[in-house]
């Protein structure tokens, strides 16, 4: 649970720094649609690259799908699939 919280916190920090959202990330739920909240397609590229830096992973082509970056939960699921280990 603590690991999930740490991952979620890091994802939210990345979104805050790179998603260019017109709203405060803290006002969005983990399942809120980030595109509906104002994230553009180009901003999702920025988010993807920042997530790769933050978690030391690389998103393969098969995960370059709109749905992968549409919410904190979706990003968390993709990172879990990539077997991200959160430093504790």
């Amino acid at each position, binding site marked *: 649970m603590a690991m999930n919280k740490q991952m979620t916190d890091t994802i939210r920090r990345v979104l805050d720094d790179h998603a260019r959202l017109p709203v405060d990330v803290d006002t969005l739920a983990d399942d809120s649609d980030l595109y509906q909240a104002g994230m553009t397609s180009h901003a999702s*590229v920025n988010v993807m*690259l920042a997530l790769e830096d933050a978690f030391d992973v690389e998103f393969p082509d098969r995960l370059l799908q709109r749905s992968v970056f549409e919410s904190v939960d979706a990003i968390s699921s993709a990172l879990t699939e990539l077997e991200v280990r959160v430093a504790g």
Partner: protein
Amino acid sequence: MPTHPGPESVLGGESSAIVIRVGTDLVCVDAVRDAFEAHGSRYLTRVYTEREVEDCRTGGTVDPERLAARFAAKEATIKLLRGGNASVPWRSIEVRRDPSGWVDLVLSGPAATLAETAGIRDLSLSVSHEGGFASAVVVAELRGDGDE
């Protein structure tokens, strides 16, 4: 009494009607500049082909306005392909600049597969940038036996 042709007639008559799709996108140049500054060459290599980056070089650097126009073209094409949640790597959609200044699209991989499935037989692209934004419009001509 003159008659006004319907849409099919305008495009060649009912028996030879041309079916088209249109995709468009608008990109903020500052967002592209920020992404390049934040992620450097990794941003370029993940999104753009080597040829596209070369086409965007000017004065020893990469012009963010030209990059933004190419990203807009890629997104406009993805909208046009209607791939839903399909994985379409940005590099599978390449913008090629003709020496005369015109731009064309070349699809490969997943983007080419989606285009084939949709029955797309020709693509036309126009890009523009002004006032901090870049835009692209893509028009596709479809075969009659496509998914339209």
